[in-house]
Each structure stands twice: as structure tokens, then as C-alpha cells.
């Protein structure tokens, strides 16, 4: 059975690194893996997404609407935007962070104050303060690896040797921080 993981966020939040580590771990564990990314505009503050699918034999690299087993959103509004993709009984992890888009900055639109409430009307969301948790262990930028930890726990992938996958993909200087971040993320999911 093929599983589908959707990572969404805003350009620059580190979704691409998180999905790279995730896919390498899944490959090492013996799964067939496909990953699809749209990143043509990612450096310019647009919405970004990485789609990861794994199983015995994966066909489409693209996740269908209504078929994602889990969505991990690095930003609140992007979680709402991605809801179309979540299965009815799927898991939604939301980083409790609000990044204003240009239309909000210029005053053309207002960022609604009740995004989380709107999401929770429809699905049971796991709200994580990944940015604050990352700051707590020394570096805000590790929020992406904390969120990766939530995926690993939610999808029951703890048995994969993630430490060695991190070692192969992260600069030695940031290795300990990221190992810690991964555990913080896993612990954030009950």
C-alpha cells in the first residue's frame, strides 16, 4: 500500500531539505520512493510543496486531492490551503507560525485571525510550535527537522536509522542540533 506525505510551506522554510532526508531514509529502509516538488518560484516567497510517496511499488509521484495520509504544514495559512489534499481520516500537523504574504503586507488582504479554528472545525490537527521549540534548542532554523520528526512519529517510521541519514545529509557543525530537533519533533506527537 502506497503512503502519501505532503509537506507544504513558504519558500525558504526548509521543506526541501526535510523531504530530502525523509526520502533518503525511506529508500535506505527498502521502500520504493518517489518525490515531487514544484520550486520554480520558491525563492520568491511563494507557496511551496514537496510530495513524498512510498511503498512496495509507487506509481504516481504526485498526490491526489483527498488522498494524503499526512500533511505537515510549516505555516498556518498553507495548512488551510492544502486541506483539499488530506484524506478524511488523515493527520494534519501545523506549525503555529504566521507568515504574511505580500497582499497582507501591502494591506490588500487581511490575514484571518482564526485560521487554526477553521482547520480544527474539519480535522483534528496537531499544532506544534516548531519555531519556538527550535529556538529552545538553540537555532530557529531547525524547525524543519522538528517537523520532520512529527512525520516520522505519525507514520510509524521510528525504526529507521535516522541518525545515520542525518549524518549523510547535514553539515557536521549542525548535526547534533538536528539530531536533537528530530527527537523534539517525535516527542511533540503523542
Amino acid at each position: 500500500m502506497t503512503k502519501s506525505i505532503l509537506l507544504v510551506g513558504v519558500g525558504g522554510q526548509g521543506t526541501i531539505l526535510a523531504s530530502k532526508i525523509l526520502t533518503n531514509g525511506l529508500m535506505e529502509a527498502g521502500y520504493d520512493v518517489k518525490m515531487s516538488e514544484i520550486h520554480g518560484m520558491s525563492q520568491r516567497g511563494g507557496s511551496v510543496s514537496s510530495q513524498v510517496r512510498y511503498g512496495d511499488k509507487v506509481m504516481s509521484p504526485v498526490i491526489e486531492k483527498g488522498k494524503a495520509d499526512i500533511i505537515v504544514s510549516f505555516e498556518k495559512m498553507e495548512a488551510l490551503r492544502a486541506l483539499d489534499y488530506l484524506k478524511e481520516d488523515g493527520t494534519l500537523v501545523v506549525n503555529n507560525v504566521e507568515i504574511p504574504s505580500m497582499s497582507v503586507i501591502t494591506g490588500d488582504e487581511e490575514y484571518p485571525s482564526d485560521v487554526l479554528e477553521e482547520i480544527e472545525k474539519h480535522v483534528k490537527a496537531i499544532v506544534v510550535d516548531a519555531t519556538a521549540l527550535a529556538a529552545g534548542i538553540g537555532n530557529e532554523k531547525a524547525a524543519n527537522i522538528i517537523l520532520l520528526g512529527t512525520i516520522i512519529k505519525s507514520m510509524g517510521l521510528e525504526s529507521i536509522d535516522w541518525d545515520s541519514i542525518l549524518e549523510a545529509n547535514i553539515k557536521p557543525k549542525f548535526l547534533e542540533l538536528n539530531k536533537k530537533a528530530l527527537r523534539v519533533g517525535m516527542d511533540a506527537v503523542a
Partner: protein
Amino acid sequence: MRKLMTGDEAIARGAYEAGVSYASAYPGTPSTEILENLSTYPEIYAEWAPNEKVALESAIGASIAGLRSMMSMKHVGMNVAADPMFTWAYMGVNAGNVIITADEPGMFSSQNEQDNRNYAKSAKLAMLEPSDSQECIDMVKAAYDLSEQYDTPFIIRMTTRVCHSKSIVELSDRKDAAPKEWEKNPAKYVCLPAMARKMKVNLIERMRKLAEYSETSPFNRAEMGSTKIGVIASGICYYYAKEVFGEEASYLKLGFTNPLPAGLIKDFCSKVEKVYILEENDPYIEEFVRQQGIDCIGKDLFPLTGELTPDVIRACVTGSPVKTIEFDRSKLIGRAPTFCAGCPHRGLFYRLGKRKDIMISGDIGCYTLAAGKPYQAMDSTVCMGASISIGHGAQRAFNAQGVSRRVVTVLGDSTFFHTGINSLINTVYNKSNTVNIILDNRITGMTGHQDNPGTGYTAKGEETTLIRIEDLVRAIGVKHVYVINPNNLKEVDDTLDKCLALDEPSVIITRWPCALKKFSKEDKEEFDSLFVTKNKVDPDKCIGCRLCLKAGCPAMQYVKEDKKVIINRSQCVGCDVCTQVCPKGAIGKED
């Protein structure tokens, strides 16, 4: 060794394993990473050309001179490369030659959605369409052998989802290809009419032989399952179809798609009850199937535009949209891409957008985003390099009508080198009076920072002659040339005033590096205090008028509770545009 690779990485890997020694390209999403990866192999000479026509011509030269060569581009690049490509098809290769086109169903980062399979048919070039990364490697390797065997250049047609999706590949060693001897052979390489007539006859015969090969190609294969439904698909659509129909259908997977295998198709269709043709964009396979007198379901059911992802297929086949979680869509806010903090385009477009009675003829690059809010400073964008020539035509038309409206054209440094330079020659030669702005941010920005003739470095990172745009435009004959700092708004205004008052063509070069660029030693020497400071708002002086936000900087934010604007430290790079916009002098440098 197994590895996860994108289609682009796998194309480069296939070229490496096939013994390719020469590669050229012009960057364009989603093809850019092909040449970026090719340039990492020491065995392959790889270069950025100023445009796709030049890239293909140099790859043709390398093939004629005996080395296996590759040329890669995004779909619209093929329009630029089409001139040599059509005649190259007549000539045939010496060493193998493969041309990669990366099409964009869905237009994620493109101005149109053209289906370049039509080019293969029209130019009579053999074509392959990979479905995943392993096939990218396998098809590239096969293409070089077949290219030499059948004396034909090959097109490999990719799409965004093949280029930018990762799947697992098995790596092999490189097999060096022995260089082919070059000999004088005008009958093969000089396309005079007398020679070309013979070549055309040969080309037709070659296509007949390739049609025979297509019937037995391992890339065209039937996979029989339930015969209630028969699916014919190529490229990524093959996997989309398998996702939707699984064992409930039989499949004819087509990988060698020009010429198409008529016999194989007839045989497959005779064994199934109904035939779906799944292909993105044009009914390329469908029209061929119908020509064979076979009834099928194609574009009468499936869309002619956008991606044919599994949910789209499912909705078409079942007649009902996929069920999704309902939520209040009025809560959604847009998140369009914007100029980055410190983007050197900001100052220029902030001021240009305020000019009255001008038409702004734009071009292809990050700066096309100036068409949207808050700048609304772009009135047309067609294709690479077109800003200057469209501007010329528009200015002539306004002048002829006796309308006083002035035309300002805007394009980037790499786009100027691409094809803008021809247009500027036209402007000077035909005595126009447009104001032409070249946004020289010292790099090819939009596609993720590739070197170009103006940066002083090659694709391999070697130092080379740095071609200065101001020298070029003066040599063309432009008498009024200004090189300005676009972050200095007064300089922007004064220069625009000067140029708009002229009755001759002018060029304004806004010279400041892209804020995301990895600065070269030349950049650090030329540009004083390059993005090392930060700006801040003095809350005592800020009156909350929010005028500064109209400059569209993502590092700034209005805090409703305090009725003040703040600057996000981690994003600000101290470009100072906001300090000049603030009417109260409330924004300054951090101490």
C-alpha cells in the same frame, strides 16, 4: 549503486554514462539542472550559451567534429533553437546528438504550455519520452547508440513532473565513446538546395526505418491485464494511469514516440474493449491513433490544458469531482511570489510604476512580477528579449498616431544577452526613441543563479572575459547610456526624467547584484557595503501611514496593535529603499 535522482539529474547521469563529452544549454525552468549537473562531471565539457539557438548550434558543431553532444532547454527555448534544428534533421549526425526539451503542462514557471512533441513530428526527428528517472538514464544511453546507428539527432521530451520528481535509479560506469573521425563531406553538412533535396529524400527514408524500429523498441511495450479498458500513455501519464486503473486495465506504454508504432497500436487496440489515450496537452498520440481508423477516447473526455494528474483522470472517468474536505475558502489569502528583501528591482519598479502616460514593455525574468501589486509596472510580456522590439513597435505606433505616450522597455542582463541585443540593434537602426532599461543584477536570477556572458565566469566556474553591457550598447550606437544604482530612488527618477525627454533611444543600466547571489570577488570590489547593514524603524517617528509598505518589501510588516511598521531583522539586508520612501524620516540604519 542505487540513488534517488530527479529526472534532470538522471538525464545528466545518462549522458555521463553514455560517454557524452560536450553539452550546452540556456537556463530555463524546469530544464536548468540538467546542465548544472552535466557541468559537475570532469569528463564533460559543459557551457551556458547566451540562447538556445547558439547552444544547439555549438552542440551540432561538436557532433560534426566527432564528440557525442547534448543540448537542453525549456519548451519555449525550442522556438529559438528551431531554425538550426529543422536543418540539422536533414543532415544527420557524426557523433550522437541528443536535444532535451522540458515542457511545462500546467505552466508553473512559463508563459505558455506548448507541446514540443509536435516539433519532433514536424522536424522529423526521432523522439523518446521518459516516465521516471531510471528511464531518463536508459533512454539517454539508448538515444546515443540509435542516433549514430540511424544517423539522426534525437529529441527527449520531458515534462516538469519528470524533470523535478525524484525516483530511485541504478548507476553504472561511464562507457567512453571513441571520437568519430571528421572528414570533409559537403553533401552531408552543407545545406545548399541541391544537397538538401537529396538529404530530404534520405530523411524520409530514415523516418521509414525508424518507424520499423519503433514497432520493436523496448520502450514501446504492451502490459496486458483486464481487457475491459486499454490505456495508451506516454511520459508521466503512464504512471498516472497505473495509479488510477491498476490491474483493471491493460496498458500500451509508449516511450519511443516519433515515429509512433502503428502496428503495435493496432494490435493493442484490437485486444481491448475501449481505448483511453492519456497524454498532457495536445492530442498527439490520439490523432495518430484516429488516423489508423481506430476509435478511442481522448481529448473529448480529458482536458487539453494543465496536468493530467490521477485526480484529474479519475474525475473525468467517473464524471464526478474527487471528494475533499469542505472548508471556508473565504479564509484563504493569496501568496503570490514577490521580489525578495533587498531585490535591486524594487527601487526601479516602485518609481517606474508611478509614472503617468508611459507603456512599459516587459520581458521574462523575476522582474515580470512587477506586473502585479504593488508596482503594476508592466504592460506586456511575450518572450525572451521581446521587450525592446515590442517597445519599438509600440513607440512607432504611438508616434504615428500623434500620441505623446512614451514607451519604456525593461529586461534583465541575461535576457539582454539572450535575444534583447538584436532588438536593441533594431531600435537604433530604425531610429526609435524608446527608453530601454537593462536590469543588471550580475547573474541569471530567475532560474537560480547561473553565470552568463556578463558575470565573468563560465558554467564550470572558470574565469573568463566579462562582457560589459554599457560597452556593448555604446558599440551598437546608443548615445545616451546611464549606469545607475537602482536602490537610489533620486538617481532612478532623475535618469528617467532625462531619458524620457530625449528624442533618441537611451539605455539605463540598473547595476546592483541580486540579494541572493553568492558574490564574486569582483562584486565585492565594485559594490560598496554590499548588504551588510540593516534598516530599522524609529517608533517615535513612525506615524503608521504605511506608505513604506507600498514599496512591497517582504521584510516589513504593519503591527496593528501599535499602529507602527516594523522591519524583520532576519530578512532585511539594508538596501535603504524604505528609508527613501518614508515621508517622516522614521527609517534609518541600525546602530
